[in-house]
């Protein structure tokens, strides 16, 4: 069956909004369960780490450039650099390395 593109876009937008809005509107009190609190505390670190590696190495034309960006980013963030300096440095090292490799 053929559907109008706008119908598809509407369904996509509504489905994803419902996923995001339900927890934010239904959970209005501090969660007491120590397990759930701990779980939610750990969620973002696992999610972001899983999405970072090995994706960062696969996102560049040359894998070594992505690896260099990963290492540089980790070192800078470890030393206390903020979001923007870390992000810009990672981009710069990829641009420079891919120029030569």
């Amino acid at each position: 069956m053929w559907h109008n593109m706008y119908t598809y876009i509407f369904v996509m937008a509504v489905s994803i909004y419902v996923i995001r809005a339900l927890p934010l509107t239904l959970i209005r009190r501090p969660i007491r369960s120590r397990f759930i609190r701990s779980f939610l505390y750990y969620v973002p670190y696992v999610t972001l780490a899983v999405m970072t590696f090995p994706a960062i190495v696969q996102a560049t034309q040359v894998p070594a450039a992505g690896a260099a960006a990963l290492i540089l980013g980790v070192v800078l963030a470890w030393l206390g650099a903020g979001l923007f300096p870390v992000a810009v440095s990672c981009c710069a090292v990829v641009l420079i390395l891919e120029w030569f490799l």
Partner: protein
Amino acid sequence: MIETRGRAMLRGLRDGLPIGLGYLAVAFSLGIQAKNLGMTPFQGFLVSLLCNASAGEYAGFTAIAGNAALAELALVMLVANARYLLMSAALSQKLREDLPFYHRLLIAFDVTDEIFGLAVAQPGFLNPFYLYGTFILPLAGWSSGTALGIVMGSLLPARVVSALSIALYGMFIAVIIPPARESRVVLGLVLLSFGLSWLCGAVPLLSGLTGSAKVIVLTLVLAGAAAVLFPVREEGEGHVA
């Protein structure tokens, strides 16, 4: 101590800048996918403005390419974006209990991986106006990037696109590394996540576990195990172990 709405929004706007730039680059490639579906630049702009998701939109596009029924499309979106359910649940704990309903509905509009990263890095309860500030440039970058991708295709040199797309990962790193430095549990989790995420791509048995599914499964298993083994103290900061 209390920040005005305007100041909070400006601070959010500034923090959203690298995200907006990264989105602009990544949305380009999403635009190329959208073009293959026959989307017009306006439709690409609209779908990205309303969905604000990368893997989630790809998944939806795949369903549309297969001429899926609407219910199937909705199911694909639900599964591919299930991690936002977790993120929104985590975010709900960063909101004041008495925060009005309309603020919650507005915040829900743009819960993305990167904005979530910024939000969890904020100390204490979140000021909704800070979040609204962070939304502006990423929304603009993501939606216009998709439209540009449809219009210009592969006009930018590949090396420029690949360098720009790294901005996102740089941001992820900047979010996860400082807490990893403070807590051995978080450090161990991050390293384990890197390792298992890599294994999923490298080991044939696990190679079916990709993209959003990999994120969901590893998040549930690893964060669940950490919560059992190393429960956090009252305020969600230090660890018992």
